């Protein structure tokens, strides 16, 4: 009896307390609002605009969701992104390598940075947030050493397809983002790796005691996070046609904000990729809509801050 009753109230209250549901509603409300405010908001061009602009944040937010769910944190993604971008430019423009080879090497740079973090955090068991503050500063420094602050531009036109081209009438980078999102969604929902990720964030010991090498799971997540930061760097270079020393500066804050708005718990264990994507969309739509309304970015900051509080006020500490 009692359990049956409990179950019923559970279903009722779970819909109301379901974060994703609320976030989707919030997103719709935002869109509806901006649609009344600007006739341009719901045009195809603008929708693609938004979708292209969220690509880099989205690409990093995907593995960052894994990172945070598994109870870790990575503040160095902006610097990794910048280093990969700059490395791409240097491999191509200074070393004279083929552009696609340079892209591969840039991704490798991202992967290596991720591995560096992963090694210190998972193998040497150092605190993730501390390690990545360190590598954030250090890698940004490496960028300045390499570039002396000068932007690197001039790439073959076929390279711009990544960030500026269209496929089947849809921006290519958006397609890639959607593809990776679906893949990541699939992995976290339908594979054991996903289960381990949640398990790790909730009770690492219990995962270990279940005969699973939890260190490897953590290592993989952090390494892939580096790789995706590198990928975001490549796409950004292609979109902007230049690699500059400030690339990715501060993006970690936007990424983490999106992930947290998406309902992922800062201390791990709970969260979802769907939520993250909606979080990324909310930030993208909010930015775009307020821009269209001509709202000064100062007020946009305040609005974003209030929005964070509203979106996560159900997430108890």
């Amino acid at each position, binding site marked *: 009896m009692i359990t049956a009753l409990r*179950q019923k109230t559970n279903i009722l209250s779970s819909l109301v307390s379901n974060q994703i549901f609320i976030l989707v509603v919030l997103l719709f409300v935002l869109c509806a609002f901006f649609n009344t405010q600007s006739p341009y908001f719901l045009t195809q061009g603008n929708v693609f605009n938004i979708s292209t602009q969220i690509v880099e944040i989205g690409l990093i937010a995907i593995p960052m969701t894994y990172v945070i769910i598994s109870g870790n944190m990575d503040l160095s993604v902006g610097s990794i992104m910048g280093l990969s971008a700059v490395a791409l430019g240097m491999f191509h423009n200074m070393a004279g390598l083929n552009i696609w080879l340079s892209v591969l090497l840039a991704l490798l740079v991202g992967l290596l940075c991720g591995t560096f973090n992963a090694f210190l955090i998972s193998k040497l068991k150092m605190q993730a947030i501390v390690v990545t503050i360190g590598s954030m500063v250090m890698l940004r420094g490496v960028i300045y050493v390499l570039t002396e602050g000068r932007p690197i531009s001039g790439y073959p036109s076929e390279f711009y397809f990544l960030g500026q081209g269209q496929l089947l009438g849809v921006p290519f980078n958006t397609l890639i983002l959607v593809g990776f999102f679906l893949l990541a969604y699939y992995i976290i929902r*339908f594979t054991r790796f996903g*289960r*381990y990720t949640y398990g790790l964030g909730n009770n690492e*010991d*219990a995962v270990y*005691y279940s005969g699973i090498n939890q260190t490897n799971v953590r290592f993989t997540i952090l390494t892939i996070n580096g790789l995706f930061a590198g990928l975001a760097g490549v796409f950004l270079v292609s979109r902007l046609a230049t690699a500059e020393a400030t690339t990715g500066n501060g993006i970690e804050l936007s990424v983490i904000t999106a992930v947290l708005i998406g309902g992922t718990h800062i201390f791990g264990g709970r969260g979802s990729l769907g939520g993250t994507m909606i979080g990324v969309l909310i930030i993208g739509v909010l930015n775009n809509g307020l821009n269209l309304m001509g709202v000064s970015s100062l007020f946009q900051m305040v609005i974003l801050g209030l929005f964070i509080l509203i979106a996560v006020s159900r997430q108890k500490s």
Partner: protein
Amino acid sequence: MESILKMEGIDKLFPGVKALSSVDLELFKGEVHALMGENGAGKSTLMKILSGVYTQTKGTFSIKGEEIRIKSPSDAARAGISMIHQEFNLFPNLSVAENIFMDRPSITGTLGVINWKQMNEKAQALIDSLGASIDVREKVQNLSVQSQQVVEIAKAISFDAEILIMDEPSAALPENEVRNMLEVVMRLKEQGVAIVYVSHRMPEVFEIADRVTVLRDGKKIATKRTKETTQDQIINMMVGREVAELYPNKTKIRSEEVVLDVQEMTLGPNQKVNFQVRKGEIVGLFGLMGAGTHNVAERLFGLKKGKGTIMINGKKANIKSPKQAKKQKIGYVPPDRHRHGLIKEMTVKHNLTLTILDQLTEYSKLNREKEQELITDYIQDFNIKTPSSKQVVNLLSGGNQQKIVLSKWLATNPDILILEEPTRGVDVGAKAEIYALIQKLADDGMAILFISTEMPEVIGMSDRILVMRKGEMIRQYNYREVEQNELLSVASSIEQDEVKVI
């Protein structure tokens, strides 16, 4: 005798569980009052209500005839009640002295400034009076479990409370320190403190308690003077039926085929352990805290490294991690299910299949239909009481949680199952079910190593009992060949006649 506390008609309702119904308890000044009952009978709950951690759903208390309300631990402290909790409640990052005197006006002077010197001295005196040798400036995280228990006791005593509640204070202590602690209890008693002593250890209870109250399924069964009762009577009151019923009958003839052969496993200097477990056999491993039974389990499951040979089905096995142990078809139900056994925030389903996700993976995708089928089967087969497979484990009762830990290892279809404290925090009904389950597994051919500090279940369940003391295997008994008092005396190395049992 002067009555100091009266609890009357205490009810406690947790969501979906009635933990206490209409319990009365009276305490006299200067008495040791034992509170007994099976796991989950409601002892801790009653005491947590008394110490302000929980609030009762119904009922009243009065202290020295005056009715009072206790809504928080600080209320209780003001009313002269202090409690040693069953689980440690220490601040690992702080010193022993601070843990004892945390947040207390007595060691602070003007403006809330702490007098460290005075605090350390006071704390040291307290610790010394408990006969322990601990530096009070040491951080608690650097102490052994036993020393931490001593700190808990010192903290509770330091309040100079009129009522002291001790919830299983001896569970984590080695024998000599249990002695010290009991002496302290007697001393406090002489000073007129009323002590509620929760314990599963009959000898202690009969040694120090004046009266004993027995709880069963949240109800008070009786309060008796210790001198006027016997252990059998108490057990009868606790369980409500013959003890024998709890344990399944052994019908099958055991096979002679050795599945697990442990040779020269080193647990400490000059301490070697050798033993075997046969197919379909339940081997009980008994020892007091610190005897080394836990180390045996950890070594076998790859949680600890060490010397010695482990042979499985006649082949030498190299086990360096739980992962490798699993490959060798070993399962392990750890003693601390909250920390190591379960991911309590995750669902029944996800916990149950955590160990076998690799088997459920097809082309790197989880076969979720198969998973669901398996789970439905397990929930049925093992009689796990849960509203759905998607229920969060945290919300299940302890017994059902334990069944999940058990099931998740059974799912791996192990040859060898190591059970450590498999019924800790589990109520009687669930206990019987778990015992029956374990017996059935053995009957089906599983080799089972049954490690427990609860003597009755070791005796009731094991085909053979191995007794350990200080890292050594010292005696072996066959099925129901041994009595509790002998087992205890062997394990604690006190000569039989010295043990004051019954």
